[in-house]
């Protein structure tokens, strides 16, 4: 039988524990707010400066020495094309590597070393990738200062992110699905293509988007491989021009990207250019958000189809 005194002691312990709960939840909210508020302040500040500058002309004009006529046409087209090359090369490579490591690779020390290295690769400063790409893609393979070189550089940069995300997504699939598939006599490839890939695609997609969102804002490696600052023309569209361009000619075209355009504008003496930079920054953040939004939507659709 509990004495009232014991009861009071227990209640005191519970209150103390609850106080810690409250304390930690406040601390958590505070930590969250540091990030969210900083972003909000920066974003709102940029929006206030930049949004009035946004107009159709801003998207359809080339850069110019006159701030009010300058636009981001070559920059946003460049960014879209570079991202396209990045996605087309990094996603197949990253997913294949992740699937191999999870499903095929023998568990031995070589695999361990590879795994450690992949995690380390994610932490390498992006400028190092830029220098590597300058030697490898630009000079050795002779791709030049082109959309292709830039896309492949950023692909290298985000490859570790995609590999790690793929592996995490695969590990989240219940072991019973694996074993069920093998028990029915399926080969590893059949298991992977019929079960592993469809079920993990939502998680893989998240990793891809995180990687792409990082790549879209990168400046250092792109400057290293020689992206341009003033470029008042677009890569020739396939089968247009005279003589007609080939289907893939655009990948060898010189280019610029959004962050470089912004960087150049912020270093100009005229104040009007920093308004342009804010507007370009707003568009860039919006592009990233749109990409994330698309990913969330696709993930939702994919999840709906999975029934375990």
């Amino acid at each position, binding site marked *: 039988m509990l004495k009232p005194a014991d009861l009071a002691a227990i209640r005191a312990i519970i209150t103390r524990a609850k106080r810690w709960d409250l304390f930690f939840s406040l601390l958590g909210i505070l930590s969250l707010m540091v990030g969210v508020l900083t972003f909000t302040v920066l974003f709102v500040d940029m929006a206030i400066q930049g949004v009035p500058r946004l107009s159709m002309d801003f998207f359809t004009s080339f850069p110019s*020495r006159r701030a009010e006529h300058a636009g981001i046409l070559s920059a946003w087209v460049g960014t879209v094309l570079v991202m396209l090359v990045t996605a087309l090369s990094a996603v197949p490579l990253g997913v294949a590597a992740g699937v191999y490591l999870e499903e095929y690779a023998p568990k031995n020390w070589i695999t361990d070393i590879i795994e450690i290295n992949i995690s380390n690769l994610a932490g390498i400063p992006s400028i190092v990738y830029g220098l590597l790409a300058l030697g490898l893609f630009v000079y050795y393979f002779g791709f030049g200062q082109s959309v292709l070189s830039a896309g492949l550089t950023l692909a290298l940069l985000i490859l570790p992110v995609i590999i790690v995300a793929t592996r995490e997504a695969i590990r989240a699939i219940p072991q019973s699905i694996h074993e069920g598939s093998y028990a029915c006599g399926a080969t590893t490839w059949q298991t992977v293509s019929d079960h592993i890939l469809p079920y993990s695609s939502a998680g893989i997609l998240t990793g891809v988007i995180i990687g792409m969102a990082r790549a879209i804002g990168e400046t250092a490696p792109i400057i290293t491989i*020689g992206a341009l*600052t*003033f470029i*008042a*023309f677009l890569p020739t569209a396939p089968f247009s021009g005279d003589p007609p*361009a*080939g289907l*893939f000619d655009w990948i060898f075209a010189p280019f610029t990207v959004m962050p470089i355009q912004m960087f*150049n504008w912020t270093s100009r003496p005229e104040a009007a250019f920093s308004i342009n930079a804010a507007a370009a920054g707003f568009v860039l953040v919006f592009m990233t958000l749109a990409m994330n939004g698309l990913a969330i939507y696709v993930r939702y659709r994919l999840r709906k189809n999975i029934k375990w």
Partner: protein
Amino acid sequence: MKSLKIAAVVASVFAATAAYAQALIKIDGSSTVFPVTEAVAEDFQKAKKGSVRVTVGISGTGGGFKKFCRGETDISDASRPILKKEMEDCAKAGIKYVELPVAFDALTVVVNPKNSFINQLTVAELKKMWEPAAQGKILKWKDVNPAWPDAPLKLFGPGADSGTFDYFTEAINGKSKSSRGDFTASEDDNVLVQGVSRDNNALGFFGFAYYDENKGKLKAVQIVNPKGKAVTPSIDAVMAGEYEPLARPIFIYVSAKSMDKPEVREFVEFYLKEGGKLAKEVKYVPLGAADYKHALDNFSKKKTGTAFGGEAEVGVKVSDLLKRNPKE
């Protein structure tokens, strides 16, 4: 079968690229020269109605020469003359070039508008502030001149990678890159503008365009020229040759090989004809009309080499430069 098809596509991609060539002029180099070259490139492309493409990068004067001497660019923007090492690189690769001055930049020394005791400075006073020996010793304004107040001296200047820093140290301290290290350095001139405008005891230097855009926040210091006259930095003073020794010519280097391309010739001629007007528009100082004509003449005669011989020089007249026999 499938792999054959892929191979065919890949082959056609490369073949098409080789065959496909639209007139393209590649320019890279100094970010100081960039605004002028950008303005010229913009108007040139408009005048040609898009039949010629021009690209301009900002790898810096040194980075620009590296690409130039590898034969990757047609024209290199430079905020200082080509150096010995770069001349050797170019010679090794068989790249000859024509050196053309295109405008002046006036390095402007600024203080905070609340600073009432500084209106003019001599080179000797600037040297006392900036020379390597000043490091850790000249920390207050009164250390430079006892008549000045006992207030901390806060110095702002561009980083050691910039041509502006090279020229200022050459002109003031007598040796390129020789300077005290304990000052606030930034590659972004807007940071220097902010720094000087917020600190009553600050002194800084950068290109004229940055001062001109921020006149309300900064006070330009008159510089006493070798003739003993204190001169306010302005486009007119530089054109009259009075703003010495801080006015410096900026250059473009045109590859002799690229001069065989008609579009490059046309572009450079356009640059030397319209460059003066456009330079003024982006707050740089144009050369005299006779100098542009002389430069055009040197260009059409294909006078290759540099008038400097790989050494930095301060206070040379552009008209004299253009008369020199360039060395390779």
